[in-house]
């Protein structure tokens, strides 16, 4: 049978096909955007201080002034802690805790919330060291640790990370939710020093890992592994946020299955025409 010449032809693209093509175009655009402008992974340089715990009396007095200005309203005039549970006493938290909170911009807190968010750092590196010195002078606590990722073992670090950190921070260090609006943040934006400080001091919800539990070498290995996590090899071409198999499956489903469905529709449209 032959089609008569000049027979009625329907428009090639029905509304369904063009809207499906639009969705596909959006997904492709989003994927390209992520490829061109990947987010995260910008590690801040560690403070280059040879012995950060060797504080001078000047630093302590300077820190005391800054503390009275910026911290005492919540943490108390002598760091004894505020009335709210969110303003814990700072006696005995050590320079490491102060350094972590200040260099990540979490402190000073803008407003009470479930958890202190990472913000632009409010103090200069010298001011932060002065505040560290003052907090350290309040009572003995964890000192600012030294960390050397290059000396760590990445395989051991991966094992330790999965055993101790991945529970909350996700196996690729991307973070996860906790209870009541709290969350475990992504570890990849933190500097090596900040990671070590967090391990030793247990900021906010995070448990504290003593040197008798995770040794200095263990922390170096974990840091080395986190360095790897900042730019992991993505065998699929794109990490999709390293959130695991669920988003990967979703992309396969949306791009793969939907793409095939659109092609089938297109073939059907052609056959009808």
């Amino acid at each position, binding site marked *: 049978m032959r089609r008569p*010449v000049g027979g009625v*032809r329907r428009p090639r693209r029905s509304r369904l096909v063009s809207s499906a093509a639009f969705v596909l175009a959006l997904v492709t655009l989003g994927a390209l955007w992520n490829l061109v402008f990947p987010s995260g992974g910008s590690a801040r340089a560690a403070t280059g201080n040879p012995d950060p715990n060797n504080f001078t009396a000047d630093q302590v007095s300077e820190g005391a002034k800054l503390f009275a200005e910026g911290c005492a309203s919540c943490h108390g005039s002598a760091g004894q802690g505020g009335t709210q549970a969110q303003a814990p006493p700072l006696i005995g938290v050590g320079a490491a805790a102060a350094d972590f909170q200040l260099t990540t911009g979490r402190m000073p807190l803008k407003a009470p919330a479930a958890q202190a968010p990472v913000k632009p750092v409010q103090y200069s590196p010298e001011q932060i060291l002065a505040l560290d010195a003052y907090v350290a002078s309040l009572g003995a606590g964890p000192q600012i640790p030294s960390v050397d990722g290059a000396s760590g073992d990445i395989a051991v670090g991966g094992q330790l990370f999965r055993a101790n950190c991945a529970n909350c921070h996700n196996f690729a260090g991307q973070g996860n939710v906790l*209870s009541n609006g709290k969350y475990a943040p992504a570890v990849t934006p933190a500097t090596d020093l900040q990671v070590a400080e967090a391990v030793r001091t*247990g900021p906010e919800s995070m448990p504290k890992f003593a040197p008798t539990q995770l040794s200095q070498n263990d922390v170096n290995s974990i840091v080395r592994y986190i360095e790897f996590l900042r730019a992991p090899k993505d065998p699929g071409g794109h990490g999709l946020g390293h959130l695991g198999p669920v988003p990967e499956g979703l992309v396969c489903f949306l791009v793969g299955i939907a793409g095939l469905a659109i092609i089938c529709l297109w073939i059907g449209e052609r056959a009808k025409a």
Partner: protein
Amino acid sequence: MSDTDDSTGGTIGERLGVPSLERAAVAPTAEHVGPVHRSHADAGNPLSGGDERDPEPDEAKAKRDERVVATLFTLSGAAAIFFVAYYWVANLHDRWYNQILGLSLAVSLFLIGIAAIYWVKTLMNDEEAVQERHPLYDQRENEVAGEVFMAGVADSAFLKRPLLRRTFIASQVPLLLAPVVLLRSLAPTQPKKAFEHTHWKPGDRLFDAQKFQPLQLLDPTKGVTLDIGGFVTVLPESAITYEQTTDTEGNVIDSVPRVDPQVEADSVTMLLRLDPNDFDPNNHRTDYRYVVQGHVAYSKLCTHLGCPVSLYEQQTHKLLCPCHQSQFLVTEGARPVFGPAARSLPQLPIMVDEEGFFRCVKDFDQPVGPGYWERT
């Protein structure tokens, strides 16, 4: 409505563009092949697709088309050969290894498809065939089957002889029970006993499940110690075995620790260290006999479905289960405060010996992990 019908004329089906049954069911016979005039109503019929083709094919053009298809097949084969070769030759860790493999396979398959379509479109006859469907339901056949069946019933005297009928039915009931009884074999032989106990034995030392070192209270040089706000996953000493490699003279040259998965499966436990003042003194769930200087041990298996409850918020003293968001409050005997879990995490009775090692006093006093059918 009838006015409108009259003005347009024809059947409803024709006006909706649905081809009438007779037209769709026309089987192509010899005289139908070749130019046939068709009405415009056929344009919407998916069965009537197909390209316009020269009824008398040009042999030279056919030769050209054949070469095109052959080229496509050759390229497809070349891509497949490239796939196999690249798989063996290239380095697995190359940046684009997966992509190149996938792409070459995709090219190979895609070219086969294109070649097949080209073949069909250019070299094959454009012929339509319609296969008629049988009627789906035949009333007469049904009646005949019914008659045959009833004749059989009458012949068997099933209705006439009640003794026969009743004994037959009575014999079938136990037979139906037989497969139900067999289901019992799918369950463990003694489920209650197997689930009631874990591998913790009195006197077992608590070992760090990751570093395979004993937990210590006093001396950090002898084992792992915790700070306040710390926690660690522990296993009974017996869970850890050492796979030893010896040289020819029998000296141990390597010793690799292994965890017995059978032991780990039910005995995995968390040792947490809290400020002793943080425990809620009014709660009756914590067994304070087994809290040693703020150290307390709970089963790591969620009482909902047995996931590892390993997210610990040291400020709020909550243990979170990652699977269904159950939360257990450690300061109140690890009772569930949120989520689907209904029972508290079982507390492991622990003590510290004179050397400072943490030891198990006795097994959990209740089954760990999720509930089961004989759990009371």
